[in-house]
């Protein structure tokens, strides 16, 4: 699929307007200096020059959603008993995410393995995912704390995007990655972009070379099991952590959730809402027992999940895209890349470790 398209800068809004006639379109909007993906409007202050504070996972995996609704009614023949009617809430619209950074687009592929390509797929996620076209946007520059090249990606990684867009002088080169993406650029605003290919590639290469690698050792980080299991390491590395959920909620790959019922009198709903492994409630059992009672246990699990457990299940793929948000927005600058670097196995060659330290 190499039919490159080109979108003139001055046609950007018109192109989005055209998309918005067929789909719900989300664009990165700057409001009071905070960038987040919001519904496209003609006067949206689209911000492309820095990554959104919060990734567009909000579009496919919203902060909360209703899974089921329950309606109660009295049984006619037995008025002391209640009948329950259960309804599934599944109404997914054609959607476009415009200008997702490659790390954010790749984040969805981390979700996909768990939510979509599993033996028990999640119909809510799959429903939205399949109806969503992701227009990725090659990073025009690097951001503080980002380290995608150190975790097997690049600022112009196509994985997860249906189209990859790269800014060149005068506009954007659009490279379709999937059939879904190809269909989207069938637009009167898209011209042939082949003559801009070279410029786009050069730009991609320039930005890629600017990404810092926080790891001393080359290649994907390999965590030493011995260090990982040393509690004193975590206690010192994490003393400053506040145990809030900023790192997880801003992470394009963090996918943990809560399910709660919210009750009105004759109806109730079952909600799914974001939850964070950094919260003590997350694992707290009704008996009062908590298998991960301190922030050290919880952060250990967070790092373990991204760099050991997930790779163990999914062919060595890390559940971290290196977007850097958890570092950038942590109120006390806990730096996961530094923690992983300190944990890394300086003796071993590059091999995939299982969570018990054996070779996968």
């Amino acid at each position, binding site marked *: 699929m190499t039919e490159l398209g080109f979108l003139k800068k001055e046609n950007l809004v018109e192109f989005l307007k055209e998309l918005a006639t067929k789909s719900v379109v989300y664009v990165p909007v700057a409001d009071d200096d905070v960038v987040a993906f919001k519904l496209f409007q003609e006067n949206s202050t689209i911000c492309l020059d820095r990554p959104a504070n919060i990734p567009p996972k909000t579009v496919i995996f919203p902060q909360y959603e209703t*899974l*089921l609704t*329950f309606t*109660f009614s009295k049984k006619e023949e*037995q008025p002391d*008993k*209640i*009948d*329950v009617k*259960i309804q*599934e809430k*599944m109404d997914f619209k054609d959607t476009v995410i415009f200008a997702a950074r490659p790390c954010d687009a790749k984040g969805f592929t981390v979700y996909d393995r*768990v*939510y979509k390509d*599993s033996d*028990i*797929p*999640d*119909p*809510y996620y*799959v429903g939205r995912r399949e109806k969503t076209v992701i227009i990725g946007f090659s990073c025009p520059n690097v951001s503080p704390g980002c380290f995608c090249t150190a975790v097997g990606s690049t600022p112009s990684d196509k994985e997860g995007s249906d189209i990859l867009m790269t800014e060149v002088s005068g506009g954007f080169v659009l490279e379709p990655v999937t059939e879904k993406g190809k269909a989207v650029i069938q637009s009167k605003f898209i011209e042939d972009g082949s003559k801009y290919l070279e410029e786009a590639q050069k730009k991609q290469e320039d930005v890629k070379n600017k990404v810092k690698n926080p790891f001393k050792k080359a290649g994907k980080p390999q965590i030493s099991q011995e260090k990982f*299991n040393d509690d004193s390491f975590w206690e010192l590395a994490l003393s400053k952590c506040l145990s809030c959920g900023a790192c997880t909620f801003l992470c394009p790959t963090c*996918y*943990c*959730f*809560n*399910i*709660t*019922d*919210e*009750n009105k009198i004759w109806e*109730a709903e*079952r909600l799914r809402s974001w*939850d964070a*492994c950094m919260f003590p409630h*997350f*694992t*707290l*059992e*009704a*008996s009062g*027992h908590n*298998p*991960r009672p301190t922030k050290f*246990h919880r952060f*250990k*699990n967070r790092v*373990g*999940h991204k760099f*050991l*457990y*997930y790779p*163990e*299940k999914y062919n060595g793929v890390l559940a971290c895209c290196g977007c850097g948000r958890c570092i950038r927005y942590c109120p006390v600058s806990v730096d996961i890349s530094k923690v992983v670097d300190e944990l890394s196995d300086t003796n071993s060659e590059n091999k995939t470790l*299982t*969570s*018990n330290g*054996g070779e996968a």
Partner: protein
Amino acid sequence: MKNPYLPELATITKIIEETPNIKSFQVVFNDHEKMKTFKFEPGQVGQLSVFGVGESTFVINSPPTRMEYLQFSVMKVGEVTTALHELHEGDQIGVRAPLGNWFPYEEMKGKNILFIGGGIGLAPLRTLILFMLDNRKDYEDITIIYGARTPPDLCYKDDLKEWESRPDVNLILTVDNEYPGWDKRTGFVPTVLNEVAPKPDNTIAITCGPPIMIKFVLQNLVKLNFKDDQIITTLEKRMKCGIGICGRCNIGSKYVCKDGPVFSLAQLKDLPPDL
């Protein structure tokens, strides 16, 4: 695509007060066809819904060999369990089941079976005990060591009476301390296990109970020369999705709701110690 979050409507047909804070609920699906075709294995769990309050996970403690109803036992500790305790026979609940793995009962055939339970931890063992009693010839000696805080805290009193009377079951009961009218053993389960000192030869030990009991039972079994693959436990964790996604019941890369709740000690030793 099947919606794994969609519960099946079911009706509570009977409620048994097991102890002052544990009730057993016998439920049948409203859809009779579903009840007839429902399949599960001993050790698998289900999510029970009190609509408008929430879901909680319980083991199906009736055996698959007795399919008139599914039984769940509920200790009143939190929001959902309290709401369950307030329900009456004839009330509607939701059931998502079966979830998780099960006891490797095929591999246990021809072996001596040692059950070690504490408190409500007898629930997952009960399903396997009844299953084995219904297939009694497949298994050699069956020994059950079961304890609770006080005699009223012992669950499944009718079952205990029956097992006690059976010549092909060796039931050893204990309570933590002396109690008026109690003439059997006293002492904690791990200590009683040491006193009974079962032989590990051709034996599989299966244990469930409070985390602290499990911890010492595992230690004592190892001391009694049981090998890691001869020891099986079934774990409990806070769960939500029940399908290995939501992230709270994991121990390392394993999700108790999906990859568990049944683990051998050999498997557990490969995982981080987040019990």
